C-alpha cells in the first residue's frame, strides 16, 4: 500500500539530497568559475589558453558525460567516489565553465579607467580586484548567475542515473513500485519549481540590495 502521505518521507529525503548536492555543486561551480575567469584574463598566455580549452569542453559536454567520466572512468585512475560526492564534483566541474564566462564578461564590463584610477592611487592589482572590480562584477552578473544556478539545480536530475537518491531518483523509485507515473513526477515537478522560485526570489532580493545605478 502506497500513498502520497506514506511516500512523504521519501520525497523529503530526495528534496534534502537535491538541495545539498546542487547547493554544494553550485557553490563549487561559482568559486571554480571565478578562478577560471581570473585565469582566462591572465597575461600568461599558456595558462589562459589551457583554461580556455577547459571552459570550451565544460560548455560543450553534457552533464551526463562529465558525470560518467568521473564516476565510471574515475576508478581506472584510482578515483573512487560515492554517488553523492561524484554528483557534487560533476556539477562543480560542469558549472564552472559557464560561470567562468559569466564572470569574465562581468569583470570586463568594469571600465578600464576605474582600474587605472586605482593603480594611480597605489592600490596593488589584488586590492584593485578585490575592492573595485570584483564587487561590481558580482553585482553585474547577478541575474545571469542566478539563471545559471537554476539551470544547475535542474540538471542535478541527471545525477539520478548514478543511483543518487535525489528527487528524480525518488520519483522513479516510487513509480516503479506503484506503477503511478503522473503523481510522483508532478510532485517532484512542484518541488523543483518551489526550489527554483526560492532561488530566483533570493536573486531579486540581492539585486535590489546591491543595485549600482548608472552603470
Amino acid at each position, binding site marked *: 500500500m502506497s500513498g502520497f502521505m506514506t511516500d512523504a518521507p521519501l520525497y523529503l529525503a530526495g528534496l534534502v539530497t537535491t538541495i545539498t548536492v546542487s547547493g554544494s555543486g553550485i557553490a563549487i561551480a561559482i568559486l571554480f568559475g571565478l578562478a577560471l575567469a581570473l585565469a582566462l584574463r591572465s597575461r600568461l598566455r599558456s595558462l589562459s589558453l589551457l583554461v580556455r580549452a577547459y571552459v570550451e569542453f565544460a560548455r560543450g559536454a553534457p552533464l551526463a558525460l562529465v558525470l560518467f567520466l568521473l564516476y565510471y572512468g574515475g576508478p581506472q585512475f584510482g578515483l573512487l567516489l560515492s554517488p553523492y560526492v561524484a554528483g557534487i564534483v560533476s556539477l562543480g566541474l560542469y558549472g564552472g565553465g559557464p560561470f567562468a564566462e559569466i564572470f569574465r564578461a562581468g569583470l570586463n564590463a568594469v571600465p578600464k579607467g*576605474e582600474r587605472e584610477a586605482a*593603480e*594611480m592611487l597605489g592600490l596593488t592589482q589584488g586590492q584593485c580586484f578585490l575592492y573595485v572590480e570584483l564587487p561590481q562584477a558580482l553585482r553585474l552578473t547577478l541575474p545571469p548567475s542566478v539563471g545559471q544556478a537554476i539551470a544547475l539545480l535542474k540538471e542535478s536530475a541527471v545525477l539520478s542515473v548514478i543511483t543518487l537518491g535525489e528527487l528524480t531518483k525518488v520519483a522513479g523509485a516510487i513509480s516503479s513500485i506503484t506503477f503511478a507515473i503522473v503523481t510522483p513526477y508532478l510532485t517532484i515537478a512542484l518541488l523543483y519549481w518551489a526550489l527554483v522560485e526560492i532561488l530566483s526570489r533570493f536573486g531579486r532580493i540581492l539585486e535590489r540590495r546591491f543595485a549600482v*545605478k548608472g552603470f
Partner: protein
Amino acid sequence: MTLPALISVRGLEKRFGDKTVLRDIDLDIHSGDVTCIIGPSGSGKSTLLRSLAFLDAYDAGEVHIFGKMLGWRDTPLGRARAGNRELTKACSPVGMVFQHFHLWPHMSVLNNVTLALRLVHGFSRLAADETGREMLGKVGLAAFADRRPESLSGGQKQRVAIARALAVKPKVMLFDEPTSALDPELVGEVLSVMKALAAEGMTMVIITHEMGFAAHAANRVVFMDGGRIIEEGSPQALFATPKSDRLSQFLQTWRERAL
C-alpha cells in the same frame, strides 16, 4: 640656480602598432609649474600625459620622476619592464584626474576618497574619514560624503575625483581634459577648484581646450601637433605671438569658434 625637474622627459617616443603617436618629446616639469598642454585632437596630448604615469608604456626615451626612471629598468641585456611594485612606487608622487572621472560607482563618495588611504597608506577608518571629509571640503562637497557618485552632476563627480587624487598627497597632479565631458555650465566649478589648487602652489600638468583657463592659470603652455611639441612658452608669448603657422592656425580656429 635651478632645481632639478620634478618630471623630466627626454626623447620620448610612443608607437601604437606601426603608428608613431609621440616623437622627440622633451619636457621638464618643475615644482610649482602649472603647465597646460593644448593642441588638436589626435596630437598626442593624452598619450603624453598618460606616459607620465606609465598608463601608456612609452617605447623609447625616458621619463624621470624625481630623478627615477619610470616604468623601465636598464639592464645589461637592454631595457626591461619595471616590476609592478617598483612602478607603483615611482608613480606615487603623481596624481591623475581623468576626463571621465572614473569614480567607483559601488562606493559612497567618501569611500572613493578614502579607499587608498586605508589600503595603501595604513590609515584607520576614522583617520581616513577625517582626511576624506577635509578633502571633500576643499572641493566644496563636504555635504556629499555619503552620496553615491551616480547622484552627482558631472562637475561634482570631477571634483570628487580631484579630492580622491589629492587625498594621498601627490606632488604633481595630471589632468586629462578634466572639463571636456562636462556640460558647459559645470565647467566653471571644476576650473575654480583647479585655480585654487594652482594658487596653493600645486604642480599641475593639464590638457585642456579651455584657452581662457590656460591663459590665466598656467605659467607655461605647451602646444602639440602630430605627436610633437611644436611650441612652448609663457601663455602671453604663445597666445599673443605664436611663432609657428600651426599654432596660429589652431588659435585662429579656436577664436572663430569662440565667437
